[in-house]
């Protein structure tokens, strides 16, 4: 059966479930495209996770910082290789006042890995974004000094990508004839 026209006029349900926490619920209202999940392991603390589209990312981080998550903890990249988008930038923020962490996961396309920099919000992200650029080749737009940090400047490739071989030490005399 087709739906009644009155149903179609009703406001669409939010695309993602609204989190219980009032701060996160406020952020969810402000950013409908952001999905909030909670990872609650059996031993260990529950972890709030926000899946953020790349377009919303810098604005969302600014809103999160205003909401009280004012401590920069971590930023790293992950290469999922088969998944689309291929890369993910994972930011961990902390609120001392609320005693909560928030993990922000941003998908980054594999073809042209570019995402906005958050160094203007958290200067501590500077080295972490350089490391992610160095090891994954993800470029951070607006970063003041996006250069390699751990590897030499003339290094080719980005080693933590999954299509970058770990390499091996050549085995000597491998092709030698066996003594009979």
């Amino acid at each position: 059966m087709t739906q009644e026209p009155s149903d179609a006029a009703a406001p669409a349900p939010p695309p993602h479930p609204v989190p219980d926490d009032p701060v996160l619920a406020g952020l969810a209202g402000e950013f409908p495209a952001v999905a909030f999940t909670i990872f609650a392991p059996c031993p260990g603390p529950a972890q709030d996770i926000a899946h953020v589209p790349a377009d919303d990312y810098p604005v969302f981080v600014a809103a999160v910082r205003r909401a009280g998550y004012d401590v920069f903890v971590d930023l790293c990249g992950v290469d999922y290789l088969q998944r689309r988008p291929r890369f993910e930038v994972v930011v961990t923020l902390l609120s001392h006042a609320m005693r909560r962490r928030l993990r922000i996961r941003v998908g980054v396309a594999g073809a042209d890995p570019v995402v906005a920099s958050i160094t203007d919000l958290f200067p501590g992200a500077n080295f972490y974004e350089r490391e992610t650029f160095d090891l994954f080749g993800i470029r951070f737009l607006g970063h003041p000094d996006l250069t390699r940090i751990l590897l030499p400047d003339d290094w080719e490739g980005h080693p933590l990508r999954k299509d970058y071989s770990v390499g091996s030490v050549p085995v000597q005399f491998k092709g030698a004839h066996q003594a009979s």
Partner: protein
Amino acid sequence: MSDTPNVVTGDLEAPSVAAPPETGSLSAAPDTADARRRLHDVWVAGTEEPERVYRATDEGAQELLPEIQEPALATQRGVLVSDDYVTEDTADEDERQIINMGPQHPSTHGVLRLQLELEGETIRRVKPIIGYLHTGMEKTAETLTWLQGPTNVTRMDYLSPFHNELAFSLAVEQLLGVEIPPRAQAIRVLMTELNRVASHLLFLATQGMDIGAVSMMIYGWREREVCLQFFEKVTGLRMNHNYIRPGGVAADLPDGWEDDIEALLEVIPAGVAEYQELLDENPIFIDRTQGVGVITPEECKAFGVTGPTARASGVDWDLRKVFPYSGIERYEFDVPLGRYGDVLDRYKVRVREVHESLRIVRQALETMPSGDYRTDDRKVTPPPRKRIDESMEALIHHFKIFTEGFKVPDGEAYQAVESPRGELGVYIVSTGGAKPWRVHVRGPSFAHVQALPVMMTDSLVADVIATLASTDPVLGDVDR
């Protein structure tokens, strides 16, 4: 050759091997740069082509930022640095010079290079250059099984190996969902707190040595040796133990460990009292440390500075209290805080933390539960040797664990522990296999090295070493 444009192209035409002077040029006045260079047959500063000077000193990522870009970062901090000696900026731009401290300077605690722009004795800009110890350990971690993982992470922050192993193991246990028996948890607390004591004793030794109290180095290492001997007795190794593993610990505590701990609890407070006698009221020590290398609580938060360095600034944040792990909430201890955030406060906070950690060790000694030292989940823990002879299932489990390794369910987990330096976080991604898909280690030293410019800018060059030592960086943790 004659139609080649007159440009210097790299090392082929090094000034020291310049062509022999033409006839008569020596007698002529050395008015041109070229002639002057030939006259001295050495590279005279200021006579090089501007372009060449730039290329010779510029190493890309190892270049100081143009100054116009640095104040932008400073204003983003949202706070003004008020702790600095020199506030007027009257000196000429030409009076500045760039010098390198490191990478093999003895007080850089490894191989760290600091590029300092000096104006007289005042540091105007600092750029930490890292990566000299980078060995791709996060890439290596993707080729090791979950059981082999601790062998890798334990080598990152080599002064607090137990904390690395603990963070990794707790993150894996989050995804596995295994419960750790109480005795294993207590052993983990005992070993990590003793590790904190050992690490802080090394800090006291090197901090004293770096600012001239060389006898401190011998004293600090003397007491640390007691801890390392206990570690060796328990784990078989002095460092890089691979003792804390997913599912528990590798072996039970040896017979007579209580006596060792009792002896240790006697020796170390006496030793620390000796250091305090040496340093606490020493006017030279206080002059070198008071008001030096200040970082404010706001700057700590913006730069991810954690641990004793942040607590010395008055940031009341200890992960053992806020997000307790491994049953540490059952132990009684205080979190010492500083007030001024200078080098002296960082020293005092760490001295107090040694005593607090010893309090935890004493409680662990008195309340050590009996029971198993690892989980009895046979998918994670290898079966006892005796069972392998009796049970086919035990044999299969043993074989699977040591050939393929156990599998960890799909998911992502972040676990942070309070290491002696600050928040040590491990972010692991599993895709359900026997090896991790991604292991990222958030080392506290990485954030601290990044924050060094905040502490050092506009202070004096002699304070660089005191400030650097006070953040207690471990370069193995920075570069991984």
